[in-house]
């Protein structure tokens, strides 16, 4: 038996060995039972036509153990997912397009156990059909109810539940380097390379996923498979309570986070904390917590970090639960879930101020422009910065700008550092934010000025 490990990840070959060992034990104990049980029992110990079920037992036990242990599979030289595993996952992917109740019925029709998760039932049905692609395609067709980064720099910052112990993370990542683990149906994360610094570890990985659907345009239905692959770079820093993912979509980043949670046992917080809100006066009761985060960033953190001439060009407010409502799709009741303002110096506009303080709506996305120059003699260039608060992380994107693109990365790093400090330290200047909230409140009941003055800093003038 393999030694128990801290991580729930186990190298694939070690898991195979553990499965073989368990089954050998079970079979030899079965033989030993002939001599240990009550007398008078009759056994058939050698019958040439008795089917050999070792492989079925091995496959079933291994699949069942994958509920507790995630196998990390060595990448072959071509760098692909094991074709046999891919074949099985694609078949499961096609089956899970059916409703769970339908899959359970299909299992019962084949006198199989029908309990368990969608994936477990799909695996059982697929096994019963011998993982035959053509038969599964026909089965899906017969049972389905309905036919069925940009340019620039992007970082996604995920708050963690605890500070990182980089030594521990490094050891656990070395264990899975050059391997992949499955993180969902027909979805894998490949731990490709680890760049180790003294204070941080940079992980390069790939999310590989496959969409499966039934193609019935030919005479015989077949499974149509569309693969996709997305590179993800993760930066983990010693003693930090955030992790940073570079140039990846939200879905790929979350897939990488899931893989890291499994492989290194780190835990993401699952939400974006707004620390220090208790120290606020008027801002605390006038503003939603996401708005506090964004306005403190704009009003203090970005300025402290040296970003100047801030011009807010896009604001997006959340008006309700954006994930809810699908059950009401059939209803004719109109629902507004978010509102987006575009323009210039939006914080000076009366409607934006009204949403912020009168309706206390959550400001969840901002885009702004900042101006800077690499040399006092050069005309300043403008750089767009986007900040968005997602359910579990904050995204920061910086464009290459209207000139001097060499400055873009520097500005991006500055903006990312400011966001990280906002997450870690909370409100930078409660008094200053209270004053801003007060000005916003006054603007909400008044008129837009001829010249923007809400975010004007004495140093800008």
């Amino acid at each position, binding site marked *: *038996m*393999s030694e*128990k*490990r*801290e*991580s*729930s990840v*186990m190298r694939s070959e070690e898991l195979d060995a*553990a499965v073989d060992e*368990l*089954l050998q*034990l*079970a*079979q*030899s*104990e*079965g*033989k030993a*039972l*002939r001599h*240990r*049980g*009550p007398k*008078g*029992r*009759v*056994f*058939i*110990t050698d*019958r040439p*036509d*008795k*089917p*050999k*079920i070792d492989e*079925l*037992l091995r496959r*079933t*036990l291994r699949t*069942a*153990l994958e*509920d*507790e*242990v995630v196998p990390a599979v060595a990448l072959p030289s071509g760098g692909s997912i094991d074709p046999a595993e891919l074949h099985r996952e694609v078949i499961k992917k096609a089956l899970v397009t059916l409703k769970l109740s339908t899959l359970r019925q299909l299992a019962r029709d084949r*006198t*199989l*156990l029908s309990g*368990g998760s969608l994936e477990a039932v799909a695996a059982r049905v697929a096994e*019963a059909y011998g993982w035959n692609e053509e038969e599964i395609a026909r089965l899906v067709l017969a049972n389905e109810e309905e036919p069925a980064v940009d340019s620039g720099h992007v970082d996604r910052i995920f708050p963690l539940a605890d500070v990182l112990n980089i030594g521990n993370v490094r050891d656990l990542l070395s264990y899975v380097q050059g391997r992949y683990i499955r993180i969902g149906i027909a979805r894998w994360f490949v731990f490709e390379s680890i760049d180790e610094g003294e204070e941080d570890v940079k992980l390069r990985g790939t999310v590989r996923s496959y969409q499966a659907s039934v193609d019935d345009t030919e005479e015989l239905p077949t499974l149509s498979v569309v693969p996709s692959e997305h590179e993800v770079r993760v930066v983990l820093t010693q003693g930090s309570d955030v992790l940073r993912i570079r140039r990846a979509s939200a879905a790929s980043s979350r897939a990488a986070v899931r893989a890291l949670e499994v492989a290194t046992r780190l835990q993401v917080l699952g939400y974006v904390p707004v620390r220090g809100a208790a120290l606020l006066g008027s801002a605390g009761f006038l503003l939603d917590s996401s708005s506090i985060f964004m306005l403190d960033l704009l009003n203090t953190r970005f300025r402290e970090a040296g970003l100047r001439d801030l011009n807010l060009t896009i604001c997006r407010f959340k008006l309700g639960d954006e994930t809810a409502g699908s059950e009401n799709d059939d209803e004719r009741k109109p629902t507004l879930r978010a509102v987006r303002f575009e323009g210039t110096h939006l914080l000076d506009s009366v409607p934006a101020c009204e949403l912020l303080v009168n309706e206390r709506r959550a400001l969840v996305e901002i885009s702004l422009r900042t101006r800077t120059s690499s040399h006092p003699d050069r005309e300043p260039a403008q750089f767009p910065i986007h900040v968005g608060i997602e359910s579990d992380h904050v995204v920061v994107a910086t464009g290459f700008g209207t000139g001097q693109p060499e400055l873009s990365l520097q500005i991006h790093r500055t903006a990312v550092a400011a966001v990280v400090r906002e997450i870690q330290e909370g409100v930078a200047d409660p008094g200053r934010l209270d004053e801003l909230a007060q000005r916003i409140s006054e603007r909400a009941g008044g008129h837009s000025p001829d010249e923007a003055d809400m975010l004007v800093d004495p140093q800008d003038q």
Partner: protein
Amino acid sequence: MTTYALKSWVDRGGFPRKQYFELIDLYLQKLNALNTTGDALSGTQVATMLAATVDGEGQLLYYILNNGQSIDDEDRWFQVCLAAGWAIFQRYTREVENGKWST
């Protein structure tokens, strides 16, 4: 042949209940050593190991053939052994819950 149908095999007099239950204790110990999630085992692992034990023992094969059933192919025989594994594990679980067997 379903788990229910194989209950009569497990419930017959002469079934080595104590020996099988001791084996389940051993299998659970081995499986828990692999389980680092802290979640309860799903049961399929134990039932599959018991299926291997039943297959190795040879008594179920005698019972099936003696009752006029056939073992046509490996899929069918595997399903019979797995159903027997579940029947034994269900009885074990029931007796643990009733305090008739302590782990």
